[in-house]
């Protein structure tokens, strides 16, 4: 029974091998791997009383006595040895001129606005060499004004109008932020002054009033405190909103002006 199972397994192997028969010859490497099947086949065939190979091994260049070439078990090397030395490159005036053109063109492309740099990475510490790198980058901030009629609308609509002196958008953005912050601080100072004044007045009022009715005064104070608190919050809110709207107006006005223009 066990023997029968083995023969059956051998037969299955054989069937597979025959199925692959088409590919066996195609590749010399697999041919070597599959050679075992040939032997297997001859053994199995012996059981049936026919001792013939399905094809002549000689025809693939292997003689009776020869051993099969070793099978390859690893991928081909990344840098295979070159059996033939390559020819030297064609030299001459044309080749040299083409070379110069190629290198020049590549250099020129780097300084064009179409060469897009990724957003500068956040540096951990300021380095001495930074100033040299920044000078490299500033060279390529050349203005490019495409004709937005030739581009899909979605690409151009949010482009901000550049500042007139031709500095990059990111720089101008930061200056805008800075200026708005400045405004804010000035406003805050004014508010503080106003508040102090109002407080002074109130104190004067308070001093002019009778000093009895402490409860009432306390309540008043509390109310005042609340009032103050409210006022502060309210003012801060408006301040925030106003500055927000300031920026928005600036942007809006710009894009209204010149919707179809953007500059990198």
């Amino acid at each position, binding site marked *: 029974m066990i023997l029968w199972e083995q023969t059956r397994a051998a037969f299955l192997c054989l069937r597979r091998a025959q199925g692959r028969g088409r590919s066996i010859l195609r590749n010399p490497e697999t041919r070597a791997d599959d050679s075992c099947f040939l032997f297997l086949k001859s053994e199995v065939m012996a059981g049936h009383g026919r001792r013939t190979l399905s094809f002549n091994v000689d025809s693939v260049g292997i003689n009776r006595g020869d051993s099969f070439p070793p099978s390859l078990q690893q991928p081909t090397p990344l840098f295979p040895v070159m059996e033939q030395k390559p020819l030297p490159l064609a030299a001459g005036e044309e080749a040299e001129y083409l070379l110069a*053109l190629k290198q020049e063109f590549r250099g020129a492309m780097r300084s064009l606005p179409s060469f897009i740099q990724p957003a500068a990475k956040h540096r951990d510490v300021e380095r001495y060499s930074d100033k040299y790198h920044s000078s490299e980058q500033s060279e390529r901030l050349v203005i490019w004004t*495409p004709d937005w009629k030739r581009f899909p609308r979605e690409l151009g609509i949010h482009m901000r109008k550049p500042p007139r002196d031709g500095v990059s958008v990111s720089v101008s953005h930061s200056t805008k932020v800075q200026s708005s912050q400045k405004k804010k601080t000035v406003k805050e100072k004014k508010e503080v002054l106003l508040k102090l004044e109002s407080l002074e007045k109130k104190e004067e009022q308070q001093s002019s009033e009778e000093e009895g009715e402490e409860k009432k005064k306390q309540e008043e104070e509390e109310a005042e405190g609340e009032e103050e608190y409210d006022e502060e919050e309210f003012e801060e809110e408006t301040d925030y909103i106003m500055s927000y709207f300031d920026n928005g107006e600036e942007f809006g006005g710009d894009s209204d002006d010149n919707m179809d223009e953007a500059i990198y």
Partner: protein
Amino acid sequence: MTAQEVRLCGLLLQEHFGEVVEKVGTHLLKSGAQNLRAIVHETGVALDLVKKSLCVLVQHGACVFSSRRKGAGSPTEYLTSYDRILRILRYPRYIYTGKTLYGDTGELIIEELLQRGHMTMSSIVKTVADRLTQNMEEGCSMDYNEVSSAFSKLVETHFLQRCPPQKTQASDNSTTTTPSDPVSTTQSTPESFPDCYKVPHVTLVGRGKRPHPGEDGEDQRNAKRPKLDPETHGDEGIYWQVNFERFHLHFRDQAIVSAVANKLDQTSSEIVRTMLRMSEVMTSPTATCTKPLSANEIFRALPPSYNIARPILDQYLTLLVDDPMEFVGKAGDSGGGMFVVNLHRALANLARATIESVVQERFGSRSARIFRLLLRKRHLEQKQVEDFAMIPAKEAKDMLYTLLSQNLVQLQEVPKTPDFAPSRTFYLYTVNQLPTVRMLLQNCYKTVANLIERRLFETKESKRLLEKSQRIEAILASLQASGAEPEQLTEVEEMITATEKQQLDSLRLHINKLDSAENQVDETIFLLESYVNSTATS
């Protein structure tokens, strides 16, 4: 599109437009048409950078966009074409051709256009005139008219063409167009527009300006944004681009002429050149052969400087027709014989010669003999190969199997019985030219990508050295400009030590070699591509 093509496109984009464009471009290449949202989402690049990258790609013609592909109201989709990006590899050759045909002016026009993607005529003329003036001696300047006429010549010979007019926003949003033809409207070629090669009337008077030394930066910036100038020249909105197809036809003709010169002699190549020039305007770009020309016509069109007498011309033509490369064919007997140039046949033969030489250089001349044998006899059994090639059986088998494993030779099975039993099957070796050429083409793409990769590696390795030498050169230049003492100059020069100088020299040598190798592989790529394209049309 294969992995090799995508890899090469990515490297080319990175070198010419930066990493961001590379990321967006390769993503588009891999994923096909996509809308803006999807690109932003899948690349993880910031929205404004994606927009800029798309603008750059559209500007350079490497990306087309279309809306309403999926019906009205669907978002605009972007699609890059890899063959357009691979053209970047051939840019030096286009520029060089511009120079050989139309001098420095032609060279600069092509160069500017390739750098910027597309431009208006007035801005090209201005920029080129300014650049030419800068290179001229003091007191001379380039007239705009001269540049304009060179430009017009380039357009007349179809080397430049108008960018196809874009669908305007208004018509984009209008609902009058039927949604059944959205694809056909966007896929139209530039040639399909009647005004494609019409030069607009441009009012441009003046001469190229030389930047004054004091306001150098200011003037340069002005030169680089001519469109901001308040004056108009009457050609706003008409953009020009380089017609690559026309350049390729020119390259093809050149390849045929030089092949004839190598195969036969100079005189016959001049005859073929004349034939090609005569039929240049009449033949369509995809024609398999030129329009028939009679020997009389050819004789009259030959430039008198060649000194070819009529009987000699007849002899040469017969020789050309009899040549096995079949560059020239005979189409009839009238008019002293009608002759054509077999364009596609010539390309096929040139491609075949390329494969043969690849086999010869990589596997030796005896393998090449087997290869040529198979090419000529089509199908051969192993035994026949050994016999015909007159190579000892064992070696012949070895070579044949090597070629087979490299996929240069294919194996065809012809079973006598339907069961494919190996003992009753013929195994015929054969060479299929077209698949082999396609494979070699992929190998070429891989080669160029490897060359670029290697060059980037070499540059990266000695980045510090290169920066140092650049800085010292800058210092030297500024010192020389300010009239410094020679001792000072030598002192600065000595900041680069001898070993560093040696390293720099060898680095330059390597990079030059890699760069020229790229150029020369591209010549092979061109030949193989043209052959593949010609089989697609014929």
